[in-house]
């Protein structure tokens, strides 16, 4: 192990965390689409959870290696306390705030079963979990402002790919939700949306959240 390995690992883990969190965000956007088959939805939601857990693990590696690397001069306070870093304090603060909020969103994600038991709880949970989109954007911003490899071609390609991936998944989700909203406000058959008339009697969605 050379003297620079911690520094290289910190930066590689940071870029990898961005990639993984982008996959998690995209899977989160696609995993709850009502149009996809139940089996596909389960696989995508598993991927969403695995990617989110991996992303948080990579953030832990990113932060701990930066703190342990004495040459980076960031230190524990600089990494953990927003605006305490001497190197690009605002950019580093975006990263540390993102990490803290991500832990909150992850904890809420784990508590989904309890929180989303009622329709009101489900709405609140969905609103809180939607914070993940903002956190992903903050992670991209942190990488662009604080990243020391941001000028390299392959890093620019990586960040562009991550942004396109999430934008594409978000667009698909928005379009699907719009279609769904248009269907539900369209012509109704005996007080129910036409599309729901084909659902077998007595068969209801198992979960409030889809």
């Amino acid at each position: 192990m050379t003297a620079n390995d911690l520094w290289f690992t910190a930066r590689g883990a940071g870029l990898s965390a961005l990639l993984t969190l982008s996959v998690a965000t995209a899977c989160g956007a696609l995993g709850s689409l009502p149009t996809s088959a139940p089996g596909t939805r389960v696989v995508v939601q598993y991927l969403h959870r695995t990617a989110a857990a991996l992303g948080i693990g990579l953030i832990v590696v990113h932060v701990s290696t930066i703190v342990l690397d004495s040459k980076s001069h960031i230190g524990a306070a600089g990494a953990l306390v927003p605006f305490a870093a001497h190197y690009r304090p605002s950019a580093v603060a975006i990263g540390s705030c993102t990490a803290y909020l991500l832990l909150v969103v992850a904890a809420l994600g784990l508590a989904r079963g309890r929180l989303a038991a009622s329709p009101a709880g489900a709405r609140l949970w969905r609103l809180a979990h939607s914070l993940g989109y903002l956190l992903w954007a903050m992670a991209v911003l942190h990488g662009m402002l604080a990243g020391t490899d941001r000028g390299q071609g392959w890093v620019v390609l990586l960040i562009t790919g991550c942004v396109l991936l999430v934008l594409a998944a978000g667009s698909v989700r928005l379009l699907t939700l719009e279609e769904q909203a248009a269907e539900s406000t369209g012509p109704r058959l005996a007080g129910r949306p036409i599309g729901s008339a084909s659902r077998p009697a007595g068969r209801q969605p198992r979960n409030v959240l889809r």
Partner: protein
Amino acid sequence: MNAPARSGVLGRAAAASVALVLGVATATGIFVAKIARSYANPNNPNSGTGLTEPDDGGGFNGFGQVSQQQDQQPAGRSHGS
């Protein structure tokens, strides 16, 4: 969903998750190797873009060395102070 169908879906989900873990591990290794290679090349202008901005108060200069000027200063103090 019946039991065989459910186990099939869970199997696909587990396989996809394992593939994701392996893919991320490989990607991380590639990223670290590319960063290390860029630092090994002193002609690469990006290799010196570490924490060396004038206002950063010293730190890593991108080549694994802390400069003498930075070394003499307490960490966190800017060059002008």
